[in-house]
């Protein structure tokens, strides 16, 4: 669209023709108030707050629906306009309960802000207000009808944005009301003798986010605190592999600082407006009373007993050193995590390879990133980023079910199709929900992805259309691995690819080399720079399953498990570990931890700083939000364990005088005020100074990652510290090619309401599951 010039409040502004006046003004710093307008959702012109005067028009016009035209002359603020807005507010407030002091939205409410601005607080109505009790629609969504201003944002967000259509508008006129999809008389939920309407949906809470007032409130946050009493820390969600930015509201409590709210107020992440149920509410596992807060050591009577840190670390370190000496480094195994940071993952494999001296390191893999990286080696620009999904003109989704497993991916696909008319092609063995957005759908047999890949070369409508796409993004579910995956990549030489994995740092764990047969960045165990620097063994180590086989055979002297629950996940027989010295580092006494000889209570992703890489290879900063007394970050624990093994930790973590730069603690270890720490860090980086802090500072090892890991060498520290995502493509040439690799991918099969072992520690997830399976059962989930 060509640019046009118009005059707004006497100022000449330029915007592409067809831009909505409200948006054009906004981009020039002229704020026009609006309740019903929401970028990206359909236009309403219902609230009439955005009225402006346009020359030659007899009436005030709504800026939210008026496209700019050349020569247009607009006044956005005048006594007439202020009066119109004020009157509209007065009318709204007539029926509004004005319960701001107890409203969750108090302090974050657009109605409050407008009333403040236009001075419409004087209510001249003497009639009683239309009252209605607050309603609980689901464990996480509450509706307070009198506060509702009927802007329809929630309805549109649920329908257009989420493709769920669980909210509607019923009645008309002043009886109009937002209604959930299960009417009271059919819900079967009765409270105090009253039947309650219920919400059967994905429980994403997007409606709450979109609500400009306190009409929709969150079941996990309501009445907990005032917004201004919290610190707001932007970090990355720990749950799935999509990498949503989430803002955590934290408040100090006696044993640290606690997360009270998760939301998306920041909206600066690659998830834009979006956040799913887990990102928004499932932080509550962190506050679970079952959190481990003291190291445990197995006593002679067979029970685990709390001991001091020093005792536990000394015991574990000494024992490991002895076992290494007696039975050799290759008798020891290490298992890493999908939810720890890149720095921790890197450190852990370095620990295995240089402190222990073994390649027996692996993690629970949920996607075959090794094949992806090797298939794309030597190419550039072939790894798709999450942001590509939002913009690409064409997308092919092979396998996977993003709606349930990668909700942001699903959101981006839907948004792209809706707003940009992107062409979506879907090939799946199930009729996944995203087929509703698809231009073409191919039904694949359950294990028939190999045949599908072959058919891409054939002459049929689907394949022809896919091959004709010039800028295609291929999103691949975990059904495709090894040869099939490689063939798919080969079949579409012009496309960009992404693999869907299951957890916050699944990709990071792979990229950082938490694998027995490749080093960080998928580099070879033999001959690569990193291999010589490590000086580690050049034969592949045991993979995760092989470690347990070895244990069962009595050949594994010790196993160090960090943030993982393989016993449950892989159904390991506990007796297999009978003669293995087991150290587990975790949040809870999981099935694996319960078998351990030493248990270290760890901090979770919301309680530490560092970086994570999502399924697409988008790297983001993780900021410390909460703090739990009695726990330590995995990073610190690994370093301390190395120390107690008698290792020179400066060779593990380059810090202090070894590196040039500052040495003071800049706040990273200082608790919840990590915002402050980030500001220091930004400043330090901006001045070309590297923050070399303490051996427990994860940024100390980021240097080494940048130096040694292909792809990560390109990352910009300032971008990272500013909270921006960066796309990483670890595909330099010379990566390892392994023939006949064992398929070790085990999808976690998480749903919208599960998150691996964390599920059972999140009361909210439990509640929502119960709500969805018992309270609203008999009704189809979402719209299909």
């Amino acid at each position, binding site marked *: 669209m060509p640019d046009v010039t118009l005059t707004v409040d006497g100022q000449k502004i330029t915007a592409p023709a067809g831009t909505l006046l409200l948006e054009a003004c906004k981009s020039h710093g002229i704020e026009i108030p609006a309740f019903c307008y929401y970028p990206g959702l359909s236009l309403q012109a219902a609230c009439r707050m955005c009225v402006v005067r346009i020359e030659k028009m007899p009436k005030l016009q709504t800026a939210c629906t008026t496209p700019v035209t050349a020569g247009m002359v607009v006044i956005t603020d005048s006594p007439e306009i202020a009066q119109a807005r004020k009157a509209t507010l007065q009318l709204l407030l007539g029926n509004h309960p004005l319960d701001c002091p107890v409203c969750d939205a108090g302090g974050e409410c657009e109605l409050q802000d407008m009333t403040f601005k236009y001075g419409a607080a004087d209510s001249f109505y003497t*009639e009683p207000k239309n009252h209605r009790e607050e309603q609980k629609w689901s464990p996480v969504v509450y509706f307070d009808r009198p506060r509702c201003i009927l802007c329809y944002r929630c309805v549109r967000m649920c329908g257009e944005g989420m493709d769920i259509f669980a909210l509607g508008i019923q009645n008309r006129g002043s009886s109009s009301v937002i209604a959930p999809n299960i009417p009271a008389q059919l819900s079967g939920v009765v409270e105090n003798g009253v039947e309650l309407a219920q919400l059967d949906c994905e429980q994403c809470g997007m409606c709450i986010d979109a609500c400009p007032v306190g009409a929709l409130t969150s079941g996990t946050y309501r009445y907990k605190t005032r917004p201004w009493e919290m610190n707001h820390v932007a970090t990355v969600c720990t749950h799935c592999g999509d990498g949503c930015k989430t803002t955590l509201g934290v408040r100090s409590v006696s044993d640290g600082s606690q997360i009270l709210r998760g939301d998306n107020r920041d909206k600066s992440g690659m998830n834009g407006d979006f956040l799913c149920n887990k990102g928004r509410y499932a932080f509550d596992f962190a506050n679970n009373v079952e959190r481990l807060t003291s190291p445990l050591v197995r006593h002679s009577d067979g029970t685990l007993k709390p001991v001091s840190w020093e005792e536990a670390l000394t015991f574990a370190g000494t024992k490991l050193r002895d076992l290494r000496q007696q039975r050799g480094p290759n008798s020891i195994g290490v298992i890493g995590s999908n939810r720890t940071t890149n720095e921790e993952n890197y450190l852990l494999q370095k620990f295995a390879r240089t402190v222990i001296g073994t390649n027996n390191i692996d993690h629970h893999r949920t996607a075959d990133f090794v094949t992806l990286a090797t298939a794309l080696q030597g190419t550039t620009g072939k790894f798709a980023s999450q942001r590509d999904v939002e913009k690409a003109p064409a997308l092919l989704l092979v396998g996977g079910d993003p709606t349930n497993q990668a909700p942001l991916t699903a959101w981006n696909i839907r948004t792209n199709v809706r707003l940009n008319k992107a062409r979506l092609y879907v090939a799946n063995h199930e009729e996944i929900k995203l087929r509703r957005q698809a231009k073409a759908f191919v039904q694949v047999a359950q294990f028939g992805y190999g045949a599908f890949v072959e058919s891409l070369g054939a002459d049929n409508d689907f394949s022809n259309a896919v091959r004709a796409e010039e800028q295609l993004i291929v999103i691949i579910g975990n059904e495709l691995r090894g040869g099939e995956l490689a063939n798919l990549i080969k079949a579409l030489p012009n496309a960009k690819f992404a693999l869907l994995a299951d957890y916050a740092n699944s990709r990071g764990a792979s990229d950082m080399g938490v694998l027995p047969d490749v080093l960080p960045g998928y580099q070879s165990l033999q001959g690569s720079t990193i291999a010589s620097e490590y000086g580690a063994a050049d034969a592949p180590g045991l993979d995760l399953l092989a470690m347990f086989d070895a244990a069962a055979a009595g050949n594994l002297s010790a196993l160090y498990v960090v943030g993982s629950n393989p016993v449950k996940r892989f159904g390991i027989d506990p007796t297999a570990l009978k003669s293995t010295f087991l150290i587990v580092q975790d949040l809870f006494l999981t099935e694996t931890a319960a078998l351990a000889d030493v248990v270290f209570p760890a901090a979770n992703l919301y309680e530490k700083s560092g970086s994570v890489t999502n399924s697409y290879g988008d790297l983001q900063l993780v900021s410390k939000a909460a703090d739990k007394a009695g726990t330590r970050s995995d990073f610190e624990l690994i370093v301390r364990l190395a120390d107690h093994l008698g290792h020179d930790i400066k060779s593990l973590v380059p810090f202090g005088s070894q590196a040039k730069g500052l040495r003071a603690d800049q706040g990273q270890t200082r608790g919840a005020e990590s915002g402050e720490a980030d500001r220091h860090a930004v400043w330090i980086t901006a001045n070309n100074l590297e923050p070399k802090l303490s051996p427990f500072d994860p940024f100390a090892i980021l240097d080494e990652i940048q130096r040694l890991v292909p792809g990560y060498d390109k990352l910009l520290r300032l971008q990272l510290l500013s909270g921006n995502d960066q796309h990483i493509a670890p595909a330099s040439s010379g990566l390892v090619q392994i023939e006949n690799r064992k398929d070790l991918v085990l999808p976690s099969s998480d749903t919208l309401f599960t998150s691996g072992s964390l599920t059972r520690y999140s009361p909210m997830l439990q509640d929502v599951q119960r709500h969805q399976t018992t309270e609203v059962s008999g009704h189809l989930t979402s719209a299909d």
Partner: protein
Amino acid sequence: MPTLVSHPDEVKVLSKRFGLGATNIDRYVELDGYKATQQAIEQGPEWIINTMKASGLRGRGGAGFPTGMKWSFVPKVSEKPKYVLINGDESEPGTCKDHLIFLNDPHAIIEGAMIAGLAIGAKTGFIYLRGEYRYLLNIMEKAVADAYAKGFLGKNIFGHEGVDFDIITQTGAGAYEVGEESALMESLEGKRGVPRIRPPFPAVVGLYGGPTVINNAETIANVPHILLMGGEAYAKLGTERNGGTRLFGISGHVERPGVYELPMGYSLRKAIYDVAGGIRGGKQLKAVVPGGSSCPVLRADEIDVGLDFDQLAKAGTMLGSGGIVVLDETVSIVEFALRTIRFYQHESCGWCIPCREGTDWIKKTLTRFHAGGGNKKDIDNIQYIAENMLGRTFCPLGDAAAMPILGFIKKFRPEFEEYLAGARVANPLIQIQPVGEHELAGAH
């Protein structure tokens, strides 16, 4: 059954077949029926539109938009099918003229729709009646079936290869707002009767996204007559820029209420005193609502005005739907205002804030005021609310609610004050449903 009335001053164009059995298709054909359509097929779209423009016919739905011009806005070529939509939602209080057309001359509406279709290149017409008009729908449906049976509707009409036209009839289910053209399209598409954002206007993007001409039933029933008598001849019957005749429904306190076809520009005074026989029971005239309940009231001394769009606009009111409601001296303006706002409050679709909340607050305040609990500020408050609704709402319903209220206060303020003084008291029969809990579905 509605009684048919007549008066010598009437000029019967549209109503000439009323009472003559024209619901029967053979009888209709005898009375020059379906001639205009055949003529239209032969002469082509340009001729039709020119004739319509020449006729000076302005929309009878309320806004008075020139019909020929409306038709000419429809783009010649369109990817999506074009449609003709007949608005028979007739719900403006005081209005019952379309009722008589459906009852007496349904084929005129079919013909008008076909001609509109020929003019703009539409092959489908919809006739939408308000839900309460079920018995009229039955008449309409029979007429449509008869026309199909005769080959007047369907494919190759009157043997003209490729000239096709289909008609679908249906009703609403109780909603005044659905008379608004874009809300009507929503309703016809099976949705809530909430108006659409304009532009785009229906002539470009209308029903099912296709270019659509929407006309009031009376407007469209005029069309065949205009084609037969010629545009100029029709225009001459009325006044400048207000061609032809119009069905005026005169109701309220007159001796002979009824629907009369009078030339545009006919004197309001004569309409009341001559045509409708004057004020019932020899009482004095107090006020007139000249074009349906949304038009600002005229006082008894303001009725020397011609009944056309322009003259009434000059008089500070509107011709609207042509429903003239006559109030004698016994009427309490406050009661009348209360009943009026109660209607708009009930019918507001609820989409936009000023209308949804404004109608509700005026109704609430006026209810209390009428019941004797008023205070001086109330009158100003009501006026303030109405003034702030005017021109600020999403669709004209908000204006339709605000305008009469402003009129009542402006012209009869002393009468409001009499309630404050206790000189007038509440009419106990006017019971307003208490405001309170509504059930979720069907809360009317």
